[in-house]
């Protein structure tokens, strides 16, 4: 029985299911699904404060909890070459209390509301994220404002926080997936912060509180920030709390980070890990970002090729060959920048064979369109997954902030499912040819060089 036969129209399916039930105690083919229920992206209230802070409130959900997330365009992308992880240190220092609250007071106050406040730092953005029992939503907004806009950044905590970051760095540098990512990113993004995944120990040791405060001053400000609140709350009360807590915030004006000029060249980069039982593989290349008109077709193509459990590469190297446990491809996006990459941790002895199969699957998709049946299943998966992604508070905040960050219209969400269903087999082939040009892919292998070198030498020059 072919997988795609299961995707029937509702009318035909009903007939099949009824007939099957009448004949046998257990039907030999699956009952087809009913008619999809209506799905709409939840309504949001949006407003902008006079200082430029853009606010989105989304009443949502039946569980009495809320999430408050402030996204600030203050990630690592604004670091200079000698400031790697300075943004991370800023994030750590922001957790150490405010002008009026000690770190302990912040933690206890958040806990009393059944939640916590954390500061996280990513490539483009920093986030101050909190959760709370629903009845404390407005109070949590005020606490987030205090942490985000009036951090004390005490000098006294600097040695301890640096020691923590140095320890995290040491552990990250010993983790094969992190080692692979570091090599991949530093190869693709030369002279850009996206390529600087790790600082040196000395660089990190040298940072001062003055540097951290300066970084905060030049990157944190209302015009560079968006506030999202999702959960069960009274919109008017939370809006009042937002206006009261954030209206006085002054800070850095908007700024545009330099977009990278990614480099790619078909070559193999081996990081030697003698005795490793597996090789950690990344095969990747620059591709289009979410603002491109072909992005949704690329999402569908990725899900079919390597980006889902039902994808061709996963079926091949996991479910057929057993080379690996958790392979997967993804489109990794930053501002006006993206790359496509396939990851896999494979048995050392199967490193060459794994490369062969991954390139075989990319080439096959470039040379012939997928069948209508196969594509139909993948389109349904991507469309269904979109519904799942928009069915939780954090999921909704993630979707909306992604849209805002990439400057996409809200119609992007309402049109998404129909765009997915419009992708044709020919389009998938075209996308694979245009945007997954594997003859230009960077290949990173973290593993036992003396065993894998011979296996992989036909797949590109070894660097």
């Amino acid at each position, binding site marked *: *029985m072919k*997988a795609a036969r299961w995707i029937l129209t509702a009318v035909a399916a009903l007939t099949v*299911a009824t007939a099957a039930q009448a004949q046998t105690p*257990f*039907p*030999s*083919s*699956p*009952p*087809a699904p*009913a008619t*999809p229920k209506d799905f709409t992206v939840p309504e949001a209230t949006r407003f902008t404060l006079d200082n430029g802070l853009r606010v989105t409130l989304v009443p949502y959900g*039946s569980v*009495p*909890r809320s999430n408050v997330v402030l996204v600030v365009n203050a990630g690592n992308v604004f670091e200079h070459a000698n400031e790697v992880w300075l943004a991370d240190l800023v994030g750590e220092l922001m957790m150490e209390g405010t002008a009026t609250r000690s*770190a*302990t007071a912040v*933690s*206890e106050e958040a*806990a*009393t*509301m*059944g939640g916590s406040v954390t500061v996280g730092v990513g490539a483009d953005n920093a986030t101050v994220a909190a*959760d*709370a*029992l629903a*009845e*404390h939503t*407005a*109070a949590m907004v005020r606490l987030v404002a205090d942490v985000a806009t009036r951090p004390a950044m005490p000098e006294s905590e600097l040695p301890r926080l640096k020691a*923590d970051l140095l*320890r995290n760095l*040491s*552990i990250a*540098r*010993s983790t094969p997936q992190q080692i692979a990512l570091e090599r991949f990113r530093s190869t693709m993004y030369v002279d850009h912060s996206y390529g600087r995944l790790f600082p040196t120990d000395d660089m990190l040791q040298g940072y001062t509180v003055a540097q951290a405060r300066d970084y905060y001053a030049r990157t944190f400000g209302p015009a560079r920030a968006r506030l999202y609140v999702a959960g069960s709350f009274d919109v008017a009360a939370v809006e009042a709390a937002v206006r009261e807590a954030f209206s006085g915030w002054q800070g850095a004006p908007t700024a545009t980070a330099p977009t990278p000029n990614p480099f790619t060249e078909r070559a193999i980069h081996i990081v030697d890990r003698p005795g490793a*039982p*597996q090789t*950690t593989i990344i095969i990747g290349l620059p591709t289009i970002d979410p603002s491109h008109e072909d992005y949704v077709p690329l999402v569908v193509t990725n899900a079919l090729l390597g980006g889902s*459990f*039902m994808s061709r590469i996963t*079926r091949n190297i996991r*479910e057929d*060959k*057993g*080379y*690996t*446990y958790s392979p997967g491809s993804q489109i990794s996006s930053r501002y006006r920048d993206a790359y496509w990459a396939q990851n896999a941790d*494979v*048995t050392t002895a199967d490193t060459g064979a794994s490369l062969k199969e991954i390139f075989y699957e990319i080439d096959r998709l470039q040379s012939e369109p997928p069948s209508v049946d196969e594509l139909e*299943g*993948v389109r*349904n*998966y991507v469309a*269904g*997954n979109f*519904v*799942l992604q928009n*069915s*939780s508070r954090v999921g909704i905040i993630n979707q909306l902030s992604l849209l805002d960050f990439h400057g996409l219209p809200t119609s992007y969400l309402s049109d998404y499912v129909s765009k997915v269903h419009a992708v044709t087999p020919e389009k998938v082939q075209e996308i694979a040819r245009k945007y997954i040009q594997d003859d230009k892919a960077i290949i990173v292998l973290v593993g036992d060089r003396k065993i894998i070198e011979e296996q992989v030498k036909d797949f590109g020059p070894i660097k």
Partner: protein
Amino acid sequence: MALALTAGLSAQQPSSPYTVDVDYHTLDNGLKVVLSRDTTAPVAVVAVYYNIGFRIEPRDRTGFAHLFEHMMFQGSEHLGKNQFISLVMSNGGVLNGSTRFDYTNYFQVVPAHTVETMLWAEADRMWGLNITEENLTNQQGVVKNEVRVNVLNQPYGGFPWLTLPQVANTNWYNAHNFYGALDDLDAATLDDVRSFFKTYYSPSNAVVVVRGDIDKAQTLEWIRTYFGGIPRADVPPLPDISEPRQEEEKRVEQEDPLATRPALAIGYHHPERNTPEYFAMGLIDQILVQGNDSRLYQALVQEKGLTGDVTGGANVLLGNMFNINGPTLWTAFLFHDAETSADDIIAAFDAQIERLRTSPVSAEELQRALTKRRSSLYAETEQFLGFGAVDLLASYALFDDDPSMINRLEPRFAEVTPELILETAREYLRPTNRTILIVKPGKKGDAQ
């Protein structure tokens, strides 16, 4: 003044207690069924939990319960290899399975209109498997690579979730390598697979849970249609999985050649499920280690800077205090620097433990622990679009034959007094009730 006070109070007024909808049935073949309606989004979770975890697996086949879980995706009577996965995904869903101490679960998170299709597929594999030698060999390869990526090729691989139970427990069922020795995984045969299925995968040893935007009467009818005819089998009684009372502290050092910094885990045998002490321990967990306001975070991180974080809990990294039936540990663990000795950290740790064992917690701190416990219970139920609630419903159906217990947890925690916390800490946080696991970086040292 009075007005201000009233306004202050009403702003703090807790919303009405949150309850999870629960409808419980048992079919003639012994299959338990829990239905729970939640119309937040047009999605549903369909799950089947079998009352067999990795504690209980053949002694010469470590890792077999988990390997078997993989075989459940390899083909049944009407769904060949890959077809189960395709059926779920091409209907817009995601799926997974996992093996834990006391259960093995299989679940799909799907658009709500596809529930019947999912139930048919789960029933098909409860009726029986149809797999080949080739499928088994393939999944032996996959599972060995799972062990490699998560344990053998990873710094701190298996720490402490896999390694600590093996040294803290004395009963083989609780103390063996449940991910499996690679040669034990290789030794598994198709006969082993058939026998395990026949022994443990009876409807009378399982629960089906469906939660989401569903019509409960219709869903129950589908479950009767697809699962009702599956014959029941007598499941052998559980072996003795009890742990004796620990009378002496254990201290174990392990070398990790991939690690660059030392690590430390301390595990205490946990009070028995659903006893007053068990609920007290749930609040002790909040007081000691959950959140940055917790005593251990404040002492070890904020004040002394011995580590960057302290992580902990019951059934740590594998679940929570609710979804485990047999003996478990309450564990705290952390990573530190070579310049800081394990003894210094243990001394700072012990100061907090002894405080809890000698002086009662204030009403205010107890109230904060209760609030955090309540909030994280809600957070657990909503995890992964309601899968978290399904997990608790399944656990309470399988272990206690009463899924509605999910709605009676808050009062049980609220009954805990400072005196009970003191008594529970004195008995269960005894140094003689614990195992200290110390991980030392191996000879390779820092890769840098």
